[in-house]
């Protein structure tokens, strides 16, 4: 082999060896498959310790924990119902926000998913509130956190007085939007009225954050679905009253001229009509399932809404 050929031979040998290494890797993986790495490992649980160890690299570590929180949520979200567990979501977000106390998205992303009932969230509104209060500790004038705490009290805990108190506190922050104070009044007067819910979700749908807009859009579709289900339920009941029998299919209602066609929910899936009870609900394949548990109307509203008995 001449000296001129040597580099070429080396390059060829290198390429062959790399291909062989990849081949061996593939064969080994097939023969002795390794378990997936344990993404449920937290490594370090104390935010204070990791903050010290990070020296001046705490912001980068916060980013790493933020990405892990997203991956954890996404990974669990894709699991089949019954096997989802978001138990690492709070520790990961807590670490993220300890390392970077001004990481706004971590508080605002974390709280809704911590508060969301299982199986779509961790079902821990208490932790959502704790996380947001931590955010207020770092940035006391950030009205968004007050708004989000109020929303958790309103939507998940149905505690309208506390919700009103937090909305009011948020409205008092410098730069807070005008509508935040109106939330407080709406809470106290109208409680869990669906119009109040729609108003709030519409405001959230204006958010600059794409994921918040997306989540709000889905909620608004669910509220529309609830309205439609109520209307269809009334139609089904009026048919029962007229025909003296429960409607067993949409075809029966279409033939009777009660509905024009098989009704579809806002995401395009057909509604389900229970043949036994005549109850209307979302189809099994509807992407809007499960519908939210609506906050109950405030007692004053419930009284006002109840027609006086003759």
């Amino acid at each position: 082999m001449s000296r001129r050929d040597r580099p070429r031979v080396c390059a060829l040998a290198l390429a062959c060896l790399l291909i062989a290494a990849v081949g061996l890797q593939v064969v080994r993986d097939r023969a002795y498959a390794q378990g997936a790495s344990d993404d449920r490992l937290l490594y370090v649980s104390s935010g204070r310790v990791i903050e010290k160890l990070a020296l001046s690299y705490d912001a980068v570590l916060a980013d790493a924990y933020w990405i892990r929180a997203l991956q954890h949520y996404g990974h669990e979200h894709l699991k089949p119902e019954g096997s989802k567990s978001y138990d690492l979501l709070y520790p990961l977000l807590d670490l993220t926000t300890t390392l970077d106390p001004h990481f706004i998205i971590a508080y605002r992303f974390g709280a809704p998913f911590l508060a969301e009932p299982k199986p779509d969230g961790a079902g821990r509104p208490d932790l959502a509130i704790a996380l947001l209060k931590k955010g207020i500790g770092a940035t006391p004038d950030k009205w968004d956190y007050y708004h989000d705490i109020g929303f958790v009290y309103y939507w998940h805990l149905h505690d309208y007085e506390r919700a009103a108190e937090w909305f009011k506190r948020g409205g008092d922050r410098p730069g807070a939007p005008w509508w935040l104070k109106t939330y407080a009044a709406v809470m106290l007067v109208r409680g869990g009225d669906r119009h109040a819910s729609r108003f709030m979700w519409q405001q959230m749908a204006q958010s600059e954050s794409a994921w918040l807009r997306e989540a709000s859009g889905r909620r608004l579709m669910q509220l529309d679905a609830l309205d439609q289900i109520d209307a269809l339920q009334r139609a089904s009941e009026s048919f029962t009253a007229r025909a003296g029998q429960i409607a067993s299919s949409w075809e029966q209602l279409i033939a009777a001229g009660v509905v024009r066609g098989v009704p579809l929910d806002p995401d395009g899936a057909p509604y389900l009509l229970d043949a036994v009870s005549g109850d209307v609900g979302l189809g099994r394949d509807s992407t809007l399932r499960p519908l939210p548990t609506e906050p109950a109307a405030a007692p004053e509203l419930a009284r006002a809404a109840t027609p006086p008995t003759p």
Partner: protein
Amino acid sequence: MSAIRHIAVHVFRESVRDKVLYNLVLFALMLMGVSYLLAQLSAGQEIKIIKDLGLAAMSLFGLFIAVFIGIGLVSKEVERRSIYALLAKPIRRQELVIGKYAGLVLTLLVNISVMTVAYYAVLGVMAWVNGSWFKPHWEAPALDPALLKAIAMIGLQLMIVTAVALLFSTFSSPMLAAALTIGLYIVGHFNADLKNFETVVDSRPVVYLARAMYYVLPNLAPFDIKAQIVHGIHVPAGLLLLNTAYAFVYIAALLAAASLIFTRRDFK
């Protein structure tokens, strides 16, 4: 003055010959790769994460250069015995120390400058991909000029670390100098704890000793303004000025100590 300049240029050229500037390629590749990956992973936080990562990488790469070249500045000359030829020339030992320091600082500054250009270029591309230079939910614009403040503080911090490495290089072996420099760098980020030692210890002498160490050891934590800048939080000009003044005074003290040790050192 001319001797210092010649030595500094020589150190810079040597660093270039030692392929120190190759880390710039690594930096640029890392930022570009990470920006592509983050677009899929970070739920709209890619600009923030690239800012964090870029500043951290500048600091970390600079630290490696400061420590691993700084520790060899003098000791390598002694090991190679080229120190005898140098000292035979009409150069004062202090000039040699200061010239070596200036050369490494020049290397670091060139590094940081090129990294800054690459950093802004990547941020510019990301902003372009996002279709906006500033979005309402970003806390600061993508091409925020305030990032230069954080970069300047990183530069000052690295200049202190270089001076520490040079000081240790004048009297100890490279390995020991590296360990001591990294140790001091870590202590430099922890030493606010020394100031409040009375909260964990009752003994007054220990508290006074801790407080004395707090003032004598380099305090690097105040130079870390990366997170504030990335979040668009105002950093007072007074802090930047005091940091700058502290860095120059502390570096002068370290160079004085290094010159003193080097001047008294016997190379027989």
